């Protein structure tokens, strides 16, 4: 992949890239699945390349479809005593805490 002047030239997404992306996405991948994903991603990116036909140098990106500014809300607590509710779906808990595998050695 070479990026210049905002135009991208697609090069094949190789296995190494797929593995790197899967690390970033925090999804473990078996070798076989990684190969299939590389194939799929390449066909999808080939399809996405079509956008290169367009010159968008002077176009403002559309960041929000609703042309409104975000509203402020009062800095007030609106829900109280929801500790139990929040912990209800936790896969593992200990009194009032979520439990995760040991992080600090």
């Amino acid at each position, binding site marked *: *992949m070479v*990026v210049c002047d*905002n*135009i*991208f030239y697609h090069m094949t*997404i190789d296995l190494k*890239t*797929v593995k790197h*992306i*899967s690390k*970033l*996405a*925090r*999804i*473990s*991948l078996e070798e076989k699945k990684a190969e299939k*994903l590389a194939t*799929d*991603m390449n*066909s*999808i*990116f080939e*399809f*996405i*390349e*079509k*956008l290169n*036909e*367009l010159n*968008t140098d002077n*176009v*403002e*990106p*559309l*960041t*929000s*479809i*609703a042309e*409104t500014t*975000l*509203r402020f*809300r009062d800095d007030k607590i609106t829900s109280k005593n*929801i500790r139990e*509710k*929040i912990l*209800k*779906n*936790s*896969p*593992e808990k200990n009194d009032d805490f*979520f439990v*995760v*595998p*040991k*992080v600090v050695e």
Partner: protein
Amino acid sequence: MSEITSLTLYELIKNIKEKKISSNEAAKSFVDRAEKSKKINAYVTENFENCLKLSKEFDDKPNFDLKLPGIPIAVKDLFCTNEVRTTAGSNILNNFVPTYESTVTQNIWNEGAILLGKLNCDEFAMGSSNETSFFGNVQNPIAEDLVPGGSSGGSSAALAANLTPVTIGTDTGGSIRQPASFTGTVGLKPTYGSCSRYGIVAFASSLDQAGPMSKDVKDSSILLEVISSFDKKDSTSIDFKRNNYSSELTRNIKGLKIGIPKEYRVDGMPDEIEKLWKKGIEYAKDCGAEIIDISLPHTSYALPTYYIVAPAEASSNLARYDGVKYGLRSSGKNLIDMYEKTRSEGFGEEVKRRVMIGTYVLSSGYYDAYYLKAQKVRQLIKQDFDQAYNKVDAILTPSTPSSAFKIGEKSNDPVSMYLNDIFTVPVNLAGLPGISIPAGVDKNNYPLGLQIIGKPFDEQTVLNIAYSMEEKINYKNYITDWWMK
């Protein structure tokens, strides 16, 4: 009187208000039919017992002033329902029981509706055939082994099979309109900001909208009136004056200008879709509308844009599924390993594919080339519509480039699956309202839909045109109940 389950919502409300049918009788009829319709696989979670109980309670103390008095309704399993399991069609949320209610569903309970259950859908609403659901394929009631469309496939199937009088779906790139088109039903995606996204499992936040799915246009107007509301809990909810969509519904569309975009005539589109569109144009003329040729020059860039924007937003939204606070947790030798295994086991193939694409296009060095580029093209697509709406009041197109396909036919080719949404995706990118109404059948007698796209916040005109054309088209779904035999 015809069977309770085949009544429209409007007819059911009328019968309940006139005390000809009780809420409990209605609930029983839908539950009985669902018990005989397991083969459709429309339900992920049934709420039947509770529904029967609540319907009895309604009958004991009825309130006929409500807009949905004691009406049993099943909804897509993407809406969080308090104390009722909500899976989003994913293994990662298989055991998730929300402790809060989505605004859209709360709105219908406030008007007297009762939850029948949660309907199957593509995993995290990512799909066009309901085949990505962790809970299995859904059968289209039209014919065996046919997909019901997606992602709201359980919803469209339940509706066409008369398992619910109406239902609510969500639409990110066509997930209400395409399944409606595939099942001979009506589906409306409202303007972005009309229906609150609070409590809806997020897919692509700048595109997601909830909307009604129904047997006819009038029913969609009744349901839209209830679900569309300004909500402070959704920062993109818009405070505009909402119509009384059902009471303002009219077939008088004389003089309205309807645009026909030439770019929607795509290569390889079957003749029957072209014919259907032409027929639709004639119907619109018969209704008194003026037909105007328009151009939406960036139409062919909509899908590539969508397949950058939607996965990018999805990869961010789905980062929350890490096995810590809720949902599935797989064991790992340390925290990172736990995250990676949880997400690997919890997500299906299509979801992984999209999270990977999204992560890639947002990753360091590629943001400008992909995401920023896509946002710029999205601007151009929106401007196309803005310019068209200087000349016309609404736009008429086919809903899909084909009728429903067979289960398994496209599941190995992601791009050919994505092409299903070619006519619906531009509407989401521009945040516009769009409806699909059944308009005819193909050579196999499978339903085909027409789409009417409106100006922002002009759901009323969209509904009125649909209502008017529906009468001329006079489409009838022929469902043989084959799955019960």
